């Protein structure tokens, strides 16, 4: 597995896309912290990076990379290697490089300008969100052998989690505003990793406002240490399950 990991890493580090991604993250993060006169605006920019850019790049890059890796994958599988080892190695390589990009691009300015709980929280969540979307990308590649279709699925996944899901919640919220649906809403937000990350960051950025809502159950829940723990566990499950499904499919796949 480590050999596969090493090969993948070496290959990706030569890849220009990831370099551009790192530079883009870095430029956005540094600019937003240095140019704004208050760091809370910088944090907002980073929040938007985490809920939009990071998932999109993670899911697209991984999907395309896995498809392009296909020929070499076939070569690898002709060797006496277990399929799960190869797949895991590939996953580890892709996710590690994306994590590294996020850390270098956004993590370093974050640690320099926001060395506090909110900063660490953001760093951890950014990395977890990258991992989740790499998993989802791996799952997407297992749905179809056709590269263009696979990329389409990946983009749809991003669009769904980044935009449509919240639209749906907003719609439900307005339709059922007379009912106590907050508990249900909290449950539903566990179905979207981006929402989980956003709510966690929100609770650190807008504490003053959140305290103003007595009825806001989700603040009491997500703000508590149990809530934080559950959120992180949920995000880990979000990494684990799509990857497991893709692994199972990959094992049976006729290449």
């Amino acid at each position, binding site marked *: 597995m480590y050999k596969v990991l090493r090969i993948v890493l070496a290959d990706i580090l030569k890849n220009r896309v990831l370099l551009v991604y790192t530079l883009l993250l870095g430029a956005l993060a540094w600019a937003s912290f240095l140019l704004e006169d*208050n760091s809370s605006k910088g944090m907002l920019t980073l929040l938007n990076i985490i809920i939009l850019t990071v998932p999109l790049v993670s899911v697209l890059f991984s999907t395309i990379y896995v498809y392009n890796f296909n020929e070499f994958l076939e070569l690898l599988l002709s060797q006496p290697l277990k399929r799960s080892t190869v797949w895991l190695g590939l996953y580890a390589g892709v996710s590690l490089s994306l994590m590294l990009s996020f850390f270098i691009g956004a993590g370093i300015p974050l640690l320099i300008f926001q060395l506090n709980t909110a900063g660490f929280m953001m760093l951890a969540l950014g990395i977890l969100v990258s991992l989740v979307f790499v998993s989802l990308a791996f799952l997407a590649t297992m749905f179809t052998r056709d590269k263009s279709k696979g990329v389409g699925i990946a983009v749809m996944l991003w669009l769904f989690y980044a935009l449509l899901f*919240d639209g749906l*919640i907003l719609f439900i919220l307005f339709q059922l*505003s007379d009912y106590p649906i907050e508990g249900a809403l909290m449950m539903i937000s566990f179905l979207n990793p981006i929402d989980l990350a956003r709510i966690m960051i*929100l609770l650190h950025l807008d504490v*003053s406002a959140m305290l*103003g809502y007595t009825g806001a159950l989700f603040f009491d829940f997500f703000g508590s240490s149990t809530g934080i723990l559950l959120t992180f566990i949920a995000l880990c499950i979000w990494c684990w399950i799509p990857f497991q499904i893709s692994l199972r499919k990959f094992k049976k796949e006729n290449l």
Partner: protein
Amino acid sequence: MKYLLHILSCLCLFHLQAAGKVWNVDQQGSLRYIRTAVGLASPGDTIYVQKGHFKEGNITINKALTLIGVNRPVLDGQKKYEVVSIRSNNVHFEGFEVIRSGKSSLDDPGGIKVYNCKNVSVVNNILRDNFFGIYIQNGAKCLVRNNQIFAKALNEQETGNGIHCWKSDSLQIIGNRIDGHRDGIYFEFVTHSIIWRNISTANIRYGLHFMFSNDDVYIGNVLKNNGAGVAVMYTKRVKMFNNHFYENWGASSYGLLLKDITDSHIENNQFMRNTIGIYMEGSSRIFVQGNSFNNNGWGMKIQASCMDIDVFSNNFSSNTFDVSTNGTLVLNRFKGNFWDKYEGYDINKDGIGDVPFHPLSLFSYIAEQNAQAMILFRSFIVTLLERSERILPSLTPDEFIDPAPRMNKL
């Protein structure tokens, strides 16, 4: 000429000093009790109290005396008595440590309580663990200066207010520090008074609380981390300048709550890290000018029951929501404020943005009616909706604008 003046003033001082007899209370000396000294002295006398721990129950000062503590003697109420009762005009009380007054909701015992008199000054004392700290009841022209008032109460019933003034006129409350009482400074029916440079922190209810207290001025006070911030109600002609309202956090906690306030000025104050900077209800004709609102949940909440509120030349930055309201009728004016959320341009470079700013956020409007919606705050779709609302207001009242937003901070 100069020397002559010096000599004259010295003579005057001498004369004042010599006007009364001087008594010296010392636990090692012949005169051991303050009560005895007060009984023996006649109006105009001065009583010096040397360092010591006095457990004399209640000390009532019913003559115009000057009491001065030397090396801060301790007056102990043993949790049973009101410690010092001042019942005469022209009393000066300085330099003591007053501790452990009794607790009772029937007669509200205080560390130092002033009953129906004029020209009393309470200066430079330390008060610890009293029910009420300094209580002025029906006083006039009294001075409360440089006192430090501490209590460690856990709930509202257990303690009274730090400085409590009732039905008084022309008071000066200057440079005091109050910590851990029910309300830091409490005014009811107090007129023509000044509250200057006090620090009121960590009180259980309000840092500053006044009702029916017209024509008062509040300058340079620091009100921080109080249970419910500051509440001011049913008052006319109040002036609040250069005060600091910090870290008043909680569901019903306000940097400054205004209820039925009219003809008032709120100028050059700082509001930082409060859940709500200023909350206004039923108020009218108020000038809000030159204030800074930073890192608050809401900079200002102006309920629709307010009218003629002029919000001019303030700074709004890093607030979650700058301004919110609960109705569509707009009878207030915004002008020349700095908003960090403003994205307009300034082509003629006069420092004033050329496009009006729409300070009302759609989402604060939605969340006002449906708190559950907060779960979607800062999501991509909500950001999109907000942007479109800023450009083309449809749900929020479109006359709620700052026509001349400032490009730079004041």
